[in-house]
């Protein structure tokens, strides 16, 4: 699967796109853990003190919010999935 990072998150990781190979049973949570392991500087931006996703950080799976349309971090992943992490939107 591939992560896409935006704005300050891409700057913290030093990359906009990150490919990660995961086992076939992997979940969104596994992909997040693998991303943070590879880019530890992201952790403070993305997780709060309790290790949960910060309220203002958005996570999308293939353009949809898995916390609304699926099982959040427990959502199963496909190898072709695109996950995205970004801060509050600020267009316009």
């Amino acid at each position, binding site marked *: 699967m591939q992560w896409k990072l*935006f704005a300050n998150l891409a700057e913290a990781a030093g990359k906009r796109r990150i490919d990660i190979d995961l086992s076939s049973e992997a979940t969104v949570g596994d992909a997040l853990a693998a991303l943070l392991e590879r880019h530890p500087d992201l952790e403070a931006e993305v997780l709060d003190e309790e290790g949960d996703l910060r309220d203002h950080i958005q996570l999308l799976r293939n353009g949809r919010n898995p916390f609304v349309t699926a099982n959040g971090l427990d959502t199963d992943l496909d190898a072709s999935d695109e996950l995205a992490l970004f*801060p509050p*939107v*600020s*267009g*316009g």
Partner: protein
Amino acid sequence: MYPIGVVGPGAERLAKRLTEHLAEHGRVGVVTNRRPDGNRADSEQGTTPSADGGTAVAETRTEELDRYRTAGAASVYGLDDEGWSAIGGGMDLHDALYAMAPARDFCVVEGPIGSAEDLPLVVLGGVEASSATDVDADAAGRLVLARAPTADAIDPEEVRETLEATEPIETLESLVEGVKASPEAPQSGAIATFTGRVRAQEDAEDTPTEYLAFEKYEGVADERMAQISSELEAREGIYEVLMHHRSGRLDYGEDIVFVVVLAGHRGEAFETVEDGIDRLKAEVPIFKKEVTVDEEFWVHDRP
């Protein structure tokens, strides 16, 4: 309108071939250098007029239009049943592209002038001949759609397909023209528009903004905008809603975002254009970095 620059040796030949192909798929504009470059002056412009006098007539008319310019006219149009010529001042490539955008689907920019803007390019010439452009292209992050040693090695159809996947130039006028072409336009008595632009200062004490840099989640941003538009179009009396958000660097004074609403009456037009921009700002994954004369920061960090 999709702009495309053609540069390198043989650019003129390729630009004509591309124009011919694109004209089968839409309305094509062309921007080229007004005066021929050194190489062409000898071979083409210096020739004697053709037997039917076509060249001579065209050049004489241009000279006549030029005389009005010399007399002080800011712009001069020469019209007849077959077409028009125009001469004027104070226009750069950016202005020409944005002036053409409302009524053209493609714009071919031929020759060195194409380097003046951040256009997708077709680069002709060997490594040696095009090395300067290569370096520019990399440094400026310009998109190179195709490279070939000669004009004949380029497939116009392939170029068009890649071109149509790039970001088109949209202006307020091109979106207004777009909604006017709606099949429901006959029932519409109102068009409301919103334009967001780069502001220099919130107030007189605010540090002046130099530019904003927008990053868009390609694909998803457009999908969200289309979703918002179609939800707004489901309202009574709303016929069409178009939105466009520019990305990349936008300097102070430039336009950022447009929302255009085609409606039956002004009431629902005003209401919908406001809801459209509010939802775009709240929901569409686009990120804004502000660069002032002193510092740079992501706008979401300074609500």
